[in-house]
């Protein structure tokens, strides 16, 4: 069995980091994007805490940049997925696809488009 070392919420947050890209991936934006996509409210602190954990695991990296006026000229902590992070994401997806494929009811009838 493959150990993904990645929780469900962590995975979602990482994916959103990837989606938002170099300019937008900081805690406030990520939490807003999460809320928009899932419809669930989440505190910035909760997102930040997950990001901090991911950073310790080495899946993301953060840098401070881009102070803007709407935040009192304070810098943003922009997160970026590392190579290791990308690999873990991929492994996680592969593992799940593998599981889906061996699900007898769906075996063969179920295709995941655009991913393999």
């Amino acid at each position, binding site marked *: 069995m493959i150990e993904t070392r990645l929780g469900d919420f962590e995975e979602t947050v990482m994916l959103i980091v990837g989606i938002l890209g170099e300019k937008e991936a*900081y*805690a*406030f934006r990520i939490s*807003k994007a999460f809320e928009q996509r899932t419809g669930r409210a989440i*505190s*910035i*602190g*909760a997102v*930040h*805490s997950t990001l*901090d*954990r991911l950073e310790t695991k080495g899946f993301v990296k953060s840098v*401070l940049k881009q*102070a803007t006026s*709407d*935040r*009192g000229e*304070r*810098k*943003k*902590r922009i997160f970026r997925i590392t190579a290791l992070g990308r690999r873990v994401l991929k492994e996680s997806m592969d593992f799940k696809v593998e599981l889906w494929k061996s699900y007898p009811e769906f075996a063969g009838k179920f295709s995941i488009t655009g991913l393999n």
Partner: protein
Amino acid sequence: MKKHSPIPPRLATYLLLSFLRDDFKEDVAGDLAENFEYDLRHSGVFHAKFNYWKQVILYLRPFAIRKPKNYASNPMIMYRSYMRSAIQNMVKNKMHAFINIAGLTIGISVGIIICLWIYDEVSYNTGYPYFERNGQVIQNVTNNGEVETVNVVPWVLGDEIRQNYGTDFKYISMASQAYPRVMAIDTMKFSRVGFYVEPDFLQMFNVMAIKGTLTFEPSSILISESTAKILFADVDPIGRSVTVDDASFEVTGVYKDFPEHSRFGDVGFVAPWSRYVVLAELEKIDDPWRPNSFGLYVTLDDKANFAKASLRIRDARLKKVNDQLAKKKPALFIHAMSDWRLRSEFVNGQMSGGSIQFVWMFGLIAAFVLLMACINFMNLSTARSEKRAKEVGIRKAVGSYRSQLITQFFSESILTTFLAMVFALLVVWLMLPLFNSLAGKNMVLPWSDPIVWGGVVGASVIIGVLAGSYPALYLSAIRPVGALKGVRSGHNASLPRRVLVVVQFTVSVLMIIGTSTVFLQIRHGKERPLGYNTDGLIFVPGATAEMHSHFDAVRKTLIDNGAIVEMASSVAPSIGMWGSSSRIDWNGKDPELSVDFAQFVGSYEYGKTIQWEVLNGRDFSRDFPSDTASVILNEAAAKYLMKEEVVGETIRSRGEPYTIIAVVRDVVFGDPYESVRPSMYYLSRESQYFLNFRLNPEKPAKESISLIEKEIKPYMTQQPFSYEFVDDSQSRKFGNEERVSTLASTFAGIAIFISCLGIFGLSSFVAEQRTKEIGVRKVLGANLPHLWILMSKDFVLLVAISCLLAAPVSWLVLRSWLEGYEYRVAIPWWIFVAASVGTLIITIATTSWQMLKTARVNPAATLKVE
């Protein structure tokens, strides 16, 4: 131009930055600000602010919180260094260390002793499994418009409750009064406390058999283990017969003694109620619902509660009594076992207190005394701050953090407290026997209880932190630059110190005034004119019919040989009441008036023996054979008749007419602080239990008593001869008040002592600080008295403020306390002056010693230092 837009709540931001990791500060604050702007645009100011707060609070996560800095690589070494510097500081300032430790030791000792005392009071009666569910049925009766609470009920009430109100109760038991009775086996006689109860009582109060069974046949008796030991020593008591009050019983069981620390602690035997009903001929009472003489104990059913059950049984007696008694509106209710001790007093039918008041009072005293010791510690530490400011400055300059300094000061104060705690335990151990004799208790330090040790350690830390908090926070905040330059903190720095001194002395003066007033009130009660003469008046219980038949001969012999001046027999001693009756009637009595008259019965010379004062009319006399149908009233009773001349009137008691032959001055027989109840004195020629003797003042009392013993002994063989002086019994009525006032004044003395210790320390500091100033002043020509006034006036001012604060507060408190007594002393104005002046004198005396020492030093010596 953009309008000034709302900004995130400042307090929330401040809070956020206070706990946030340094490297997160910028971006997190930025994110939250951006979020605030976003909310502002989308949902309004209120929501934005609310959400900002929420976000800040939700940032309280381990990852985001600043880690405490790891200052030292080896904390043990650091703590050892703190301890060492604490000890060094103590050694260097021996006197202040002594004042601190001594003050705290006294404070903590008082605290421990009072905690023991409170525990002792609160744990009274708790040693029964049904402690929470047991209660006693008692009643409020309205007499002369006043509600009085009595804890005795008619004997038939038990069955009535059982039959008609039984659903609320698990167990119900009547009980006779528990008092010492003569128990006899063969020819040996013992006096043991005991009473008669119903079988339910055994379950209610968890009576456990050690030997035999707890069967309750009418002729069986259960004796306690300790009674068994006294009566039978090592012989098996089961099946042996004993006589109690001349009735014979068979011992069927030995039970484990009741918990000593409880109402039944001294009960040495219990016998069946059914037997008592026969022995006391209860069924012959003409109106069984009238006399109240018995206890009724109940255990609540699991579903019932005291309030509801009380309400249900309230009118159980009212429904049964005759019309005359119904006017008294007897209302039954249940006095819960948990209140028996702590809330045992009733005013106007409402629970008004009991020993709970003393629990509160002593608790407060303990808190105050401890607080005073802590204040001393704080004051001395801050006063010393100017000396230690340099130390703090240097420590800070070489890189000490403020938190390290705080830890250092706290470890000093906790070390001091621990030392004080050790001494205090020693002091308590030594003083406990003395305190026990003062308080009339039997307390021990529970050394083996781990909770106590936990408490001791916990209390040391808490007191240490409390006492050390002010100096720790105050001293550690000193700015190093200023401290090293020697900039003196201004006048404001000593303000908290002054406030604390005022607090200390206010409390001390309060306590002095309070305890002196208690003393005055007790003296007032003791000096109350009793209406008769207690000097050389003795009473002897246990007069027999045989004695009575030789009464006149004995009287003559004793008077002739000069042992006594007069003697009389009576149903009760002059300090007690025989009974009271409400079936009193006279011509013109208001039919709505319901009044109880206390009843006294005595022989012809009763009045002459106790030497009461006849105000009007004549005393009973052998010259008037009709005097058995005469009665003497006291002033209070005469007032009820509302007639100008009561002598010669007829008054009916229980239907029998009596002629009033005299009015006497009120004889105080009951509570020395209450007004005297209306009383009636009857003459009886029959045998009565007590003999009263007025000893001959010309003869030594011992001699007279032995003559009395010699004369009456032949006729009173059943009991050993015993006697009591009436003034002894009278002064015993003050026991409780005296005990409390002795304790309270001891504590007040301690409080004053601690306060003085404090200002002694402070004044020595001030003197030391001003050494140079004094030197300069002396050089410029100031003389000793001038310097003395200069230095003392600060303290005197503070103490004067305290006196001014304490006077009105104590007046209010004492006035409400004294309202509890009908016969009370007026608070004299001089007590405030005396307390204030006394305190001022003590203050001046304590502060002057150091001041004068400083003032007398040759200025040449002080000015050349440095």
